């Protein structure tokens, strides 16, 4: 390996750097754009920590969950059903559903790797595909330089994990009123994700309204309300999204135009 690399080096020096090569400038741009994201993550994960504490997680365990999952809705949904002593299978299914959007984002990101990008970059980028990091990565023109995203991840991921741990600790210390206020931060984050696209698309706006309404109804309807919160979320998501996909199919070009915007 070593000797081979040495033989190749003189030739490579003269070749223009590939788009995926490490560049300090690109990495720093990623860090710059990662600052507001990290701040937001820190605030929101604090309220996630409050949920984690209710589910019986220690600060270290909460830190671990967030460090390994990087998923707001996914983690929150899992904590909510773990509180109700969910089975491991239920936790796997709710994590799958609440995080299903990352599947789509990863598909989109997969198209943006320049040919020849070393395979391991895909494994590292996959560690932290979130709404925000996906958003800033896909918004950059041309092929993807993973080091841009890494710059943002080195700030965002620790902020997310640390905030969760602190939320668990502070949940014990803070007065009830402060905990009450902080516990809506996560919902604020959800709204910040779903409302801007709803403003642009009437279909998405209608879907959000219908989802609110049906979720409300199912929360109080006899029979259905007996189902666990996680199960209701899964059933409603699959039912409403399937209906929307049949009635209002989207085409790929429209989607990409929105991501680029």
């Amino acid at each position, binding site marked *: 390996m070593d000797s081979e690399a040495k033989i190749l080096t003189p030739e490579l020096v003269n070749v223009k750097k590939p788009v995926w090569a490490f560049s300090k400038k690109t990495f720093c741009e990623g860090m710059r754009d990662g600052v507001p994201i990290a701040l937001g993550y820190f605030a929101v994960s604090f309220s996630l920590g409050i949920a984690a504490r209710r589910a019986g997680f220690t600060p270290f365990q909460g830190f671990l969950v967030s460090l*390994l999952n990087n998923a707001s809705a996914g983690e929150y949904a899992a904590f909510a059903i773990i509180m109700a002593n969910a089975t491991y299978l239920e936790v796997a299914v709710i994590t799958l559903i609440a995080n299903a959007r990352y*599947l789509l984002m990863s598909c989109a*990101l997969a198209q943006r790797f320049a040919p020849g990008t070393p395979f391991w970059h895909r494994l590292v980028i996959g560690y932290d595909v979130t709404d925000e990091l996906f958003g800033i990565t896909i918004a950059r023109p041309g092929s993807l330089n993973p080091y841009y995203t890494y710059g943002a991840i080195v700030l965002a991921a620790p902020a997310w994990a640390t905030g969760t741990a602190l939320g668990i600790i502070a949940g014990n210390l803070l007065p009830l009123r402060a905990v009450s206020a902080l516990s809506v931060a996560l919902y604020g984050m959800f*709204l910040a994700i779903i409302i801007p696209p709803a403003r642009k698309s009437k279909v998405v706006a209608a879907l*959000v309204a219908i989802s609110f309404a049906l*979720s409300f109804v199912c929360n109080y309807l006899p029979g259905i309300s007996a189902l666990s919160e996680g199960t209701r979320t899964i059933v409603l998501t699959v039912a409403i*999204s399937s209906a929307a996909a049949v009635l209002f*199919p989207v085409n790929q070009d429209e989607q990409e135009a929105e991501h680029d915007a």
Partner: protein
Amino acid sequence: MTHNNYIYIAVMALVSYAIRILPLTLIRKPIKNRFIQSFLYYVPYVTLAVMTFPAIVNATQSPVAGAMALVVGIAAAWFGASLFQVSVACCAVVFVLEFFL
């Protein structure tokens, strides 16, 4: 039956990572099926909306404060506030209102 938190963590982490890594490594071609494409496109909005309401109303000490946080959060996001700003606005509404409620 009692469950081990570390097994919960492992299950969550495996699923979360698999969801992201499988498309990046295996599905290198665009998904052509229009239904799956559309379904995946709508899922995030639906699932987050379902999880937000009515849960936000029940998350606070006073349901009225939670409902107001929802209204203010929607308005702030509608007018282009960032993730951080929307979250802080929601918290502030609850914090202030619960002084009076």
